[in-house]
């Protein structure tokens, strides 16, 4: 299967705005990581950073989803059937 490029290929030396932004977020998030390290299970630095990076987006989606379910439940209750 042929791969479809998501955006035009970068020129030599060009970093790309999206990449720069993500890199900035990732680097920033390193300094916001919690300190306690688990001796028993290695959580993995990359895994911790990823959670922090995607955490707020997931939380927003989740919040909308929960409210949407509440709204649906509200109207279902009003339905006489």
């Amino acid at each position, binding site marked *: 299967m042929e791969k479809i490029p998501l955006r035009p290929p970068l020129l030599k030396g060009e970093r790309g705005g999206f990449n720069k932004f993500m890199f900035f977020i990732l680097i920033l998030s390193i300094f916001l990581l*919690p300190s306690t390290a688990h001796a028993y299970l290695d959580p993995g*630095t990359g*895994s911790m950073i990823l959670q922090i990076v995607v955490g707020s987006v997931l939380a927003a989606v989740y919040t909308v989803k929960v409210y949407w379910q509440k709204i649906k439940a509200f109207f279902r209750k009003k339905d006489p059937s």
Partner: protein
Amino acid sequence: MLVLDPFDSSSTSTESLRVNSSFRDDAGYVVKENGVIYRVITDKGRDDFEAFMSSGLYDVLASRGLLVSHEEIVGAPLHGKGAASSARTGDPVGAPLGAPSPHKILKPVQIPFISYPYEWSFSQFKDAALLTLDVHREALKKNMSLKDASFFNVQFIGSKPIFIDTLSFEKREDKPWVAYRQFCQHFLAPLALMSQVDLGLNRHLQAHIDGFPLPLVSKLLPFKSKMRAGLMMHLVMHAKSQQKFENKKEIKQATSQKMNLAFNLTRQLALIDSLESTVRGLKIPSVKTEWIDYADSNNNYELESKNFKKEFIEKVLDAGVVKTLWDLGGNTGFFSRLGSNRKIYSVCFDGDQLCVDANYQQAKKEGDAFMLPLVTDLANPTPAIGWNNTERMSLTQRGRADLVMALALIHHLRITANVPLAKIAEFLAACGRKLIIEFVPKTDSMVARLLTHREDVFHDYTVQHFEQVFGAVWSKMHKEKIPGSERTLYFFES
């Protein structure tokens, strides 16, 4: 609940043995005494365990059937001289070297047969993943957190998955999920590969005992699978993030400094929700395998002979001494159900993923607590793996069953896999004490098919030689010819 004791001989049954897979967590360890599993909690595990109990989480998980329930061993003497009894008295002898001193001993509900993720069908794997997320969500609600999302912490009691590690919980803090990487490697990655690449790929977990490395999964997944939001985030980006940061010294130093970020409860719940919908979105691919229509297709299982076999098996089962049954090459479990319906714990092995999955789906629908379908290649059965090759048991180490059934199997072992009859007898004797086996002669149409394109070098494959070889292993033999076929059904015992 009955236990299949891998250390079956009575000489070892009075001593307790620390279970070989139990040495990583200093909060506790597992011992086996007189064939019964106990969990010892050390002083290191005390706080989290007491928080787990007092938070009400244990009650919720046990009452919902998500976690094995347990009783605390208080005062009751354990007879052995091993770890469980020494732990109870505070004597460090028998405890793992350097282990913290014991706090409590639990006797959990016993698991009749230990199975491994590389033996599960797709739906079993998926249910085990959803169970793990469910357990973690319940924990968060009680201000606790699941610290260990290993696939080895899930077992099946019949068709029902259950979490077995009572010590996998800690107090919740506002920080990222410590077991996120583990969950992705142990559950999401294998499920994605099974669903998107090939159903049999979980078998390769025998080589990757800590789950599939995410960069490997990233390489194997097709482009269009990577474009699914959940897989993109939790596998592809996750792998990239690992590769980017894992080996950079300065980042490790940076993370070890005092820093704080509130990864609050909402984010933690959102993460589970995202993982759950990603798992739910993975479906079993619509493929046809060689054996899935076997039971209904046009072969020698005409109704008459099927009923004959059924009655033959029922006679053996109704004699009442069989408590555990292994059905080797059991397809979708038609004959295993004769056992599970009689409350005989029946493990039905087949090499075909779809057959095992169909069997599991049916058992699940019926709420069958005595039927455990598993995938294994009998020509190359599950090996013992892990540290020192003793952490996870081989197939035969988990025997012996009271009864083994090998119906319409021997010609595949002798001809397809090219294993001599004497070696087949040796393997079957290692699996079980009694044996029901169907002999399928060369004149049978199915065997003729196997021989179509190969030279017949199987000169020992005759009914006389079969009886001679198997008769040497088991002292008693009872046989009946299956009507309407060339086949014979045998019951062997000693």
